[in-house]
């Protein structure tokens, strides 16, 4: 290897390393900040404590918001997963022209700028009295989670041999049972990853919640956003660490499932 190519190789690796640092450092730095014992955001922190975690767990408003967020994410996932599964199943098996349109329509929540989704949902909810209600949040987040489920399940169905289901049915099983006992178990990893992504997307969703959450139904992200707009409260660091850890653990579950499948 010549000197010049070794040098350019080194420069290349340095660039990759720098970009990876750029991606990772901001997230890693929150961890020590969340254990700081200081009100000020000095780094490294002057000392360590659980003060900001106590501030979170000792504050009824934060806890209520966290409870709302988790409830909404769970219920939205429970709605989006079966609805998305059924739609993906229909699109996979039907050759109707309408299905092509449907596929594009179900991707819309990922394509339309989220602020437009937010004011649109707000507009509808203001007329039917769903603003600041739990069902309103759940349905809106279910809609936002649908594309994740549809995409994951579609990929699963594409890799599944549908004749197995036909065999089960030709042996006298009804369709619902053949789907539940033959198809579903085999594409479970896809369904679970779709559901997990829907859950995380609901948990992290901020902008739609800004418009339609409120009153007793504040979400965690809405409270975080309004707090951050005014001040840099270190409690946010503690919440951020917990939120990130939750998402990350869930993603690990998905990766584990996918590797088992492979």
């Amino acid at each position, binding site marked *: 290897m010549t000197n010049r190519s070794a040098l350019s190789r080194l420069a290349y690796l340095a660039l990759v390393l720098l970009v990876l640092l750029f991606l990772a450092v901001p997230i890693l730095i929150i961890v020590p900040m969340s254990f700081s014992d200081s009100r000020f955001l000095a780094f490294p922190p002057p000392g360590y404590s659980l003060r900001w975690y106590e501030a979170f767990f000792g504050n009824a408003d934060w806890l209520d918001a966290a409870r709302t967020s988790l409830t909404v994410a769970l219920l939205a996932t429970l709605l989006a997963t079966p609805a998305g599964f059924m739609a993906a199943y229909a699109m996979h098996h039907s050759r109707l022209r309408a299905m092509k349109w449907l*596929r594009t329509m179900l991707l819309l929540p*990922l*394509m339309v700028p989220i602020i437009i989704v937010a004011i649109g949902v707000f507009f509808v909810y203001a007329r039917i009295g769903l603003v600041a209600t739990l069902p309103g949040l759940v349905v809106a987040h279910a809609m936002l989670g649908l594309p994740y489920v549809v995409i994951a399940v579609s990929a699963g169905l594409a890799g599944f041999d549908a004749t197995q289901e036909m065999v089960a049915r030709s042996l006298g099983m009804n369709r619902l049972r053949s789907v539940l006992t033959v198809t579903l178990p085999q594409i479970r990893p896809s369904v679970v990853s779709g559901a997990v992504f829907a859950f995380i997307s609901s948990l992290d969703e901020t902008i739609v919640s800004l418009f339609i959450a409120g009153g007793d139904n504040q979400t965690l992200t809405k409270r975080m956003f309004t707090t*951050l707009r005014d001040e*840099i409260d270190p409690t946010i660091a503690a919440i951020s660490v917990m939120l990130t850890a939750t998402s990350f653990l869930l993603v690990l579950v998905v990766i584990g499932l996918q590797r088992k499948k492979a």
Partner: protein
Amino acid sequence: MQACAPTPPPATPSRRHARREDRLMLALAAPAALVVLLLLVLPMAWLFAQSFYDGGFTLQHYRRIFTERIYFDTFALTFRISVATTLLALLLGYPVAYAAARLPQRWRLVVLGLVLVPFWTSVLVRAYAWLILLQRTGVVNKGLQAAGLIDSPLPLVHNELGTMIGTLHILLPFMILPLYATMQKIPHDLLMAGSSLGGSPAHVFRRVFLPLSLPGIVAGCTMVFVLCLGFYITPELLGGGKTIMVSMVVSRNVELYNQWGAASAVSVVLLACVFAIFALIGRFLPLERVVAPR
């Protein structure tokens, strides 16, 4: 969806069966379709109508966008940030995706992990992290001062620069993941063939690898650009009230001024840009590949 002619024309059993099958499939798709229709398609149609309405048909909301300075500036700023972010993300993301695609398995997982952790971290959390890092007394300024490189803190946040940094950080994974997905599928044999035929590494890269990675480049650039056009949280938190992007104008017109006419016209222009891009790209790539690179 169940609405069918009360007396269906005589049909052979197989046709009747096919029709029953169609009805079942439509019924299965109905819940998902209805939710998106009611909460997304319907309001978008209403926004469109509203943008031409002020007691009667009017074009004044659009006239305002094209004549009032603030609207023009907002769109110009949004496009400038989006173009810059997309180019930077491609420039910085391509080498990382390339490394991930060519490294041995163990290192590949490390690189992908470092890309995926921020990808699945809340946008809010990341804005907060950048506030810690970039503020006047933040880590970066303190570090540069300690190293003697600067005398007084640099204004790194609460401005356009801060917005750009935060935006780039959030969108970089959206560039890297589709690039990686494409590069990973490029057969190694092709590159070997290229060099065994006498091509220099740079030549093989330019003539074989780069063209084959083009679908990933297109998918990544599309998603980064479109997402950036609609960015809201990051400019709101890191822009210091001076970096007004399109989404913020929409939000303010609704929240503060209750001006649905203005908000809807701006929304329609934004949507038109986004849909035009997707329609164009959709002719070359399946949209699913663009919006969901995972």
